[in-house]
């Protein structure tokens, strides 16, 4: 499958990545090579087969909803690149 500029730009956007011109060409080529390799799966007829999303039969397991965690605001905010008091701080996201 051919990966054109529009598709790689769309995928970079979905991935929240900015690609330089050089990177864009490199990722286009990787993706084409890897997808060509993945074509192999097309040899298998999987029509109507179930999709295995998890290694084992998953069953819902219920438990009482008890508060077990404690207030960790300081610990959690402690790793932020920027904060303002009890908040994470980021550049303005909405115009005035």
């Amino acid at each position: 499958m051919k990966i054109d500029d529009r598709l790689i730009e769309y995928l970079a956007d979905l991935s929240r990545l900015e690609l330089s011109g050089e990177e864009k060409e490199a990722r286009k080529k990787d993706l084409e090579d890897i997808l060509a390799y993945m074509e192999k799966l097309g040899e298998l007829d999987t029509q109507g087969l179930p999709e295995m999303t998890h290694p084992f039969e998953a069953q819902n397991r219920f438990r009482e909803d008890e508060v077990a965690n404690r207030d960790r605001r300081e610990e959690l905010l402690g790793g932020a690149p920027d904060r303002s008091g009890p908040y994470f701080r980021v550049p303005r996201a909405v115009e005035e």
Partner: protein
Amino acid sequence: MDLDLKKSTALEIAKAIQERKLSSPEVTRAYLDAAKADFEKAPGDTTKINAYASLGEEAAMAQAQAAQKRIDAGEAPSPLAGVPVALKDIICTTEGTTTASSKILTGFRAPYDAGVVDRMRAAGLVFLGKTNMDEFAMGSSTETSHLGITRNPWDTARVPGGSSGGSAAAVAAGLAPFALGSDTGGSIRQPCALTNLTGVKPTYGSVSRYGLMAYGSSLDQIGPMAKDAADAAALLAVISGKDERDSTSVMEKPFDFSDINMKEIKIGIPRNYFGMPGLADDVKACVLGAAETFRALGAKAIDIDLPLIDYAVPTYLIIACAEASSNLSRYDGVKYGYRSPDAADIHDVYYKTRSEGFGTEVKRRIILGSFVLSSGYFDAYYKKALQVRGLIRAAFDKALEGCDMILSPATPTVAFEIGGKIQDPIAMYLADIYTTSVNLTGLPGLAAPCGFGEGGLPVGMQLIGRAWEDGRLLSAVKAYQGATDFHKRWPA
């Protein structure tokens, strides 16, 4: 006992500590000194193994002293009390940093301990530090680390495998008695095979993933990397068990590590695995030699059919990358770690932070994951891969009805040269051809030494078992290691 950093096993050290022949602070100091000597070598030094991402000297000594106090009071919390261990840089600890060897997590200090860390603390183990790895566990050579490559102690011009290459190199070079790694597609077994260690990817759901930075959540599992099966079993016994904080943690009863009668064991040999074009002759000969040893121990070794190996790597890549593209969306420059200094607006915070913070292989996999999950391609790739995953699981279940465990190579070749595959992603992905199926199926798999090939480099076999029979796999290797001495050789 004379402590030999390279040769002494964790259980030998544990016994010496219990018998007061060594103290925990003494042992911990010796490993820290060795690790520090390597850590402090210049980055370009070709004798630098670079096994560690960070060392936790002060915390380790404090833990060792605390453990020794309890031992001296006759209150040793476990048979491994006071023994030091190294942790892959993807397992969260409140002490020191946990960075997944990525720029985007530079300086990150976890606010909580991983589930396995809680268990190891309760057992009185001592944490030496964090080991280097492929960034976010994406790689098979430890060359994608933001912290520089790790070298194979057997030949420093070669890779130690990956992604848990730092853990493997640390144990092989005598910089830790044993270590924890994580395995999403082979990241414990492949480096163990390339460095002459015994390592286990446990049954999915047996070891808590709480506090393990997520790569492919339906595939990831933490496991031990050790000098022999007995050490691996001892560490696995500590870290396995149900954890309410991980909803996929479903272990009902502890693993059974008791000795097994090899005469009652049937080992399946999938002949097609040994006919793969990429399999090197030296590896093939050593692994088939292991089959003979198992026979000599009384086991039955029979040929079995195990189809679909050619489909395992593409299926794995689709599923792992899809899960990774979702899991890694949390690294946004807001909550923790790195933020681009050039971020002028919120768009930049996300885009520039991620573009500067992630390395090439991580970007490659996130983009691939975004592709297979995107509208228009989802059915042809992601859904297809989930269906093939079911077929692969069914093939393994069927094979394991006719035998107790499956013997295969762990890797197609011995350790390859640094730089040998890093420019060719598909060649690198194929380094995991024998290991990825095990993660897709959730079954337990281990790698263990079984000989030496080209250039005197170690060769590893892989044993795959039925779900929850991890203990039996290790007992079989224990029997094998009683009859062989490959695991008792160390790099010069």
